[in-house]
């Protein structure tokens, strides 16, 4: 105990070095715990394509199938419903799906009807606001939430509205058009969801 001179520089260096190494250790130790919250291998594996026959879907009807546990709307749109689509453009956020919604559909469905075949709408039925499943309100008649309703989707959670192509109206919380999944027609009456048409990106 004869050493009465304290080397403050050395002490500061040792304190700082210990703290830094300790801090790095804590961060490194936290990584496995944080990563353990990622979707597990089992959750990731459950995502095979789904095949659905269209024979029993009458014009104007909607069928909901599960793909990756997500609800996929398959709608057989009537000519009247298709005729309403162009008229909605001025009231929509992104009518051509080339602005904020450019990534919401594959290239082969980036058109006025947002589909491969005009009558068949295949769409992930998840509101782009906070993930609810919007209600299918196909009738063209005044609704409590919109006196000028032209048919489409109404989200019960936060009252976002979409037209018959899943395009979002202006002035609602949802920012984007609903997502179109990759899909293709195996034949005239069978659709496969999860895989795009051959040759399409």
């Amino acid at each position, binding site marked *: 105990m004869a050493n009465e001179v304290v080397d403050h520089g050395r002490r500061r260096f040792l304190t700082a070095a210990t703290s830094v190494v300790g801090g790095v250790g804590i961060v490194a130790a936290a990584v496995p715990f944080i990563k353990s*919250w*990622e*979707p*597990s291998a089992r*959750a990731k594996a459950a*995502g095979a394509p789904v095949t659905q026959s269209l024979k029993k879907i009458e014009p104007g009807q909607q069928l*909901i199938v*599960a793909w*990756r*546990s*997500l*609800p996929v709307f398959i709608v057989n749109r009537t000519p009247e419903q298709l005729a309403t689509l162009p008229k909605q453009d001025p009231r929509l*956020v992104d009518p051509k799906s080339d*602005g*904020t919604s450019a990534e919401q559909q594959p290239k082969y469905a980036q058109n006025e009807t947002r589909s491969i075949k005009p009558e068949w709408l295949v769409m992930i039925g998840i509101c*782009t*606001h*906070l*993930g*609810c*499943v*919007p*209600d299918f309100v196909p009738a063209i008649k005044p609704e*409590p*939430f*919109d*006196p000028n309703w032209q048919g489409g989707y109404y*989200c*019960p*959670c*936060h*009252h976002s*509205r979409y037209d018959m192509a899943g395009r979002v109206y202006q*002035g*609602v*919380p*949802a*920012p*984007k058009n609903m997502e179109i999944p990759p899909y293709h027609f195996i034949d005239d009456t069978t659709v496969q969801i999860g895989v795009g048409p051959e040759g399409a990106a």
Partner: protein
Amino acid sequence: MAKVFASIGEWVNERAPGLMPVYRKHMTEYYAPKNFNLWYYFGSLALLVLVNQIVTGIFLTMNYNPSAAGAFDSVQYIMRDVEWGWLIRYMHTTGASLFFVVVFLHMFRGIMYGSFKKPRELVWLLGMLIFLVLMAEAFMGYVLPWGNMSFWGAKVIVSLFGTIPVIGGHLVEWIMGDFLPADATLNRFFALHVIALPIVLLLLVVLHLAALHEVGSNNPDGVDVKHGPKGNRWSPSAPVDGIPFHPYYTVKDLVGVGVFLLVAAFIIFFAPTFGGWFLEHDNSIPANNLLTPAQIKPVWYFTAFYAIVRMIPSAFGTAVWGVLGMFGSIALLFALPWIDAGPVKSIRYRGTGYKVALTVFVIAFLCLMTIGMDLTAEYFPKIFGAGIDITLWENVFGRFMTLTYFGFFVFLWLYTHLGWEKTKPVPERVTMHD
């Protein structure tokens, strides 16, 4: 017998001489102002509910099955087959709602009497943290029965984080541990609800009380008794207007406990769902990932904040604004000690502007709640005729109330920082001495 207890006490005291001083500091020699009124019940009641939640919660975990396949059925099992299980669960669910009732009133008391002001900013901040943890705790508990409202509530609340640009989508998957609320989500929420958050909550409550006892309690006059005249019946150095917390306020609080338990028992036995407000009817349907309930809304205590999310539309291709608005509405409460620079604490001696502003603020909060509860959607057509555009009217009404909510903080800042407030003189001592 008394001799035995005395000798045990002595034995402990010899080995841990620090215990009795701690007890005295926080109980028999904690001098609280003698003019507490009705508003001062809610702190101790919050503690009571916390104990209730922990005890009933422990017993619920004994029969609850935290898995997507078994959760819903295990809750029904608790309700039907476990002896007294229905009572334990109703005590827990009613306790959750009453927790927010007493906490909201406790917070309002703090705002009304300026209890958040210097030197009690830390008490307020710790209290706000408790409120935040409580909201997380309540939300995760709400998910556990795995009914359809649980599922969609989880989906919507977790999706709030998805609106954050760039990282949002991945963040949502990280929180859920899947691509939608699933087994992994339920399990981690269970772990957080029964272990992690209660530990944090208890720690914060201890710190909240420690910070309070360091600076002393405020009172309806906003007079600092600690810095007033000294000397009372118990000690010449104690505040003249202070009385020992124990036995005076412990006994007073027991009266509050009695009334509170009466109300709670009435709800538990006669109206446990409280007309769908405490327990929602749609949650009696098992979780269904393909079907959103027709009317989805959070439990009543989240409705005001939820209405703010709904009222703010998306802009620039993102829905993050509504979420920012909601978090902002809570963040502003955190900042209250610095927004309100008025030197006078209690509403009794503050300017008329403050009284009006606080009243308007409360009205705005209640109106936002009615929107969040979908009461406006139900009653607007009845009041204004069936032909009206509900969305439009709800938006006009709700956006006005949202602006009013935020306007309160803006007004308060201007009012106190620019010296517009005309206060009344604050008395030297609390008004009801001797």
